[in-house]
């Protein structure tokens, strides 16, 4: 499906934003470059900063194709960055001791560019994944990038009411690292703990906002530690000890093990989050559901939203609207 539906969905929830940040992600957006990492960069002064990024990329692999991301002038969007995308093939031989050398090279590049090249921000780095974000209302951002021109099999969208970094494009959701994309409504009160934990594994938080840790935590738990996504959700929003104490032996052991091992990854504070990877999406809330989350299905399609209205505008005949319980993950898998 193309980007029109999600644009209309977000337009139902302008109440939840302030016109200072919105964004979309589409999985499957680059069929012709599907095997290459689509590295998206915001350049501040492209003539000065791009050479350094090119050079860094060339050290680690080959730029197969690159282009400025096409944009279309909108009245309220000031184009303060030049969005650029590289399709990149890392050289696996350069990371010989890793079991996932290509991903590790990309992760290293993202952290390297974002911490050491001022004026360049990598905001997406997955394969066949397009991110569109800017400072503006969701409809304007959609039109700015003409997301109706892209097709995807998973779409996430977000409308931001910034409190931390208004107007900064990098602060708009979705956040992406490798194959992970995250949209988030809320504020993570455990951010200080989560950030320090994830940084001890080599990740660097550079977006000045709490949401990026979610992408990094999923990358660590699922890609690097091989946990199933539902177990990763369990680590981030685990059952209470009282509940664990009442569980039968094996289940109690599993949950205790998760909490002991991944205590610093537990996310506190109000949130509703949807995380996507190429073969699945998962939506969940904090352990006491301080933010709304509703789901609906229609045939093979799963919708997850803050509001039912947004689902109904895309799928007026949607059958089963449900409200998942606090901390309970809603998982949609892609069947090809």
């Amino acid at each position: 499906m193309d980007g029109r539906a999600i644009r209309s969905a977000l337009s139902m929830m302008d109440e939840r934003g302030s016109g200072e940040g919105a964004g979309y992600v589409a999985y499957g957006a680059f069929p012709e470059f599907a095997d290459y990492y689509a590295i998206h960069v915001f350049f501040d002064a492209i003539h000065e900063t791009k050479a350094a990024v090119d050079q860094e990329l060339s050290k680690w692999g080959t730029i197969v194709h690159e282009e400025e991301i096409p944009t279309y002038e909108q009245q309220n969007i000031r184009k303060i960055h030049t969005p650029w995308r590289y399709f990149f093939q890392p050289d696996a031989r350069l990371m010989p001791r890793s079991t996932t050398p290509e991903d590790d090279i990309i992760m290293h590049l993202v952290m390297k560019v974002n911490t050491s090249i001022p004026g360049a921000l990598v905001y997406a780095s997955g394969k066949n994944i397009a991110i569109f974000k800017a400072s503006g209302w969701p409809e304007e951002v959609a039109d700015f990038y003409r997301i109706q021109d892209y097709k995807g099999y998973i779409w996430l969208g977000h409308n931001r009411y910034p409190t931390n970094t208004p107007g900064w494009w990098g602060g708009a959701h979705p956040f992406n690292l490798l194959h992970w994309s995250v949209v988030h409504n809320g504020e993570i009160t455990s951010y200080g703990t989560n950030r320090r934990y994830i940084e001890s594994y080599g990740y660097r938080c550079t977006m000045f906002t709490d949401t990026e840790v979610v992408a990094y935590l999923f990358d660590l738990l699922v890609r690097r530690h091989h946990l199933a996504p539902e177990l990763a959700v369990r680590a981030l929003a685990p059952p209470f000890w009282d509940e664990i104490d009442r569980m039968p032996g094996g289940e109690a052991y599993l949950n205790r093990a998760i909490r002991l091992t991944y205590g610093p990854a537990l996310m506190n504070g109000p949130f509703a989050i949807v995380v996507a990877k190429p073969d699945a999406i998962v939506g969940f809330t904090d352990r006491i559901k301080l933010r709304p989350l509703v789901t609906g299905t229609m045939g093979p399609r799963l919708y997850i939203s803050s509001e039912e209205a947004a689902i109904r505008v895309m799928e007026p005949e949607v059958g089963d609207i449900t409200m998942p319980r606090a901390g309970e993950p809603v998982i949609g898998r892609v069947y090809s």
Partner: protein
Amino acid sequence: MTIGSVPVKFRISVDHDQCMLCGRCVENCPYDVFRLENGKIHVNSRKCVACHRCIAMCPRDAINIRERPVDYRSHPVWTTETREAIYNQARTGKIILAGMGNAKPYPIIFDSLVLDACQVTNPSIDPLREPMELRTYLGKKPSRLETRQRDGDVEVLTSLSPNLQLETPIMIGHMSYGAISLNAQASIARAVSDAGTFMGTGEGGLHQSLYPYQDHMIVQVASGRFGVDINYLERGAAIEIKIGQGAKPGIGGHLPGEKVCEDVSCTRMIPVGSDAISPAPHHDIYSIEDLKQLVRSLKEATEWKKPVFVKIAAVHNSAAIAAGIARSAADAVVIDGFRGGTGAAPRVFRDHVGIPVEAAIASVDAKLRSQGIRNEVSLIASGGIRESADVAKVIALGADAVYIGTAALVAMGCRVCGTCYRGLCPWGIATQRPDLVARLDPEIASRNVGNLIHAWTLELSELMGAAGINSIESLRGNRDRLRGYLLDESIMKVLDVRPVGA
């Protein structure tokens, strides 16, 4: 007569109009300050240590104590304490002994840190209505979890090491039987058992009468090895190797022979009346690898069923030392700050050696994180924790749990007079004299200690709720929720906190 007598430290006055000559002050003062003669209470102020026992017992509020009623000529460098220490040493030629914790007026970092609360963008959580989790597990944790899907069930392949399960992150630190009375230990033991937390035995063995509480006791192995045998190790819920103590880093311990009565002698396994001297180093630990061997030996002896903690004094290089300890089989590192109390320590050590626990915990936590091993080992803070806010702050700086010592004694009546080393504690806490010990009723004192733990736990829940946090692990190391108020930039860098307003 070169030096002559120094001015009295405390001046006691008795309001004879109020006094009804009941004699309670005479009975209660073990320092013989009061005597009843010719129908009047007479006092010898020079003997007073300001323990306040007489004040607490006087039914008529007839007694008053004034500190330093005689002024020395004031001088900013040659303070009263400095001068008196010199008189004392000129007279005796000895090391000055002192009790309780560091008495120098160093600024207290805790008091320059403020906590955060939620407003609007995230809701605070009401602990009366929502669950609030303070449960804490102390011990080795896996660095990652290996799982396998089997018939739809998830199987955990990683095995968990034994951990201590605490219902509140507040434990009572190691104060030995000998340093404190059996009644004091029994009171603490009952309180921690009821509260679902733990206490330390100190290096004084485990008295038989405390066996019923052994599941809540951490047995200590220190350099003197007093009271240590396999029975002792097996009874403890965990074992703690004491390398150093915040009140006196780098030196051993000394229990005067006068405190070694029959019962203490049995529990410590030393002869009656003999001084119990713990050497400065462990005579089998001269390197980090020796420590590792001791940790493993203790684990082997107890069949790897018990967590083993290692306690060090907070010193300049704590971070690197803790990282070394974390690499051994040790389950937790205890960092004892320079404000930690003690029954007796050389004054020069108590006041001048070591660093504050706030800075030590912050640097240890950061070092362990930089090496990717922070969550694998637990971190316990002790030394100078006075209230629930200190607990919250030190956890936010990176600790898993705390030990409190002095605060628990104060809950039993201790007035922090700092005269523990004389063994005459009128509150029945730091003494072995049977008549004094009998003054401490474990029934009541255990309730007082229990109340304190309970009250702090409630306050901690409220502080967490206000910060929008409902699980203690989200407070741990969460320095974003702290701000430094009038702290200098270098110390804020160590603490990794921002200034207020930033």
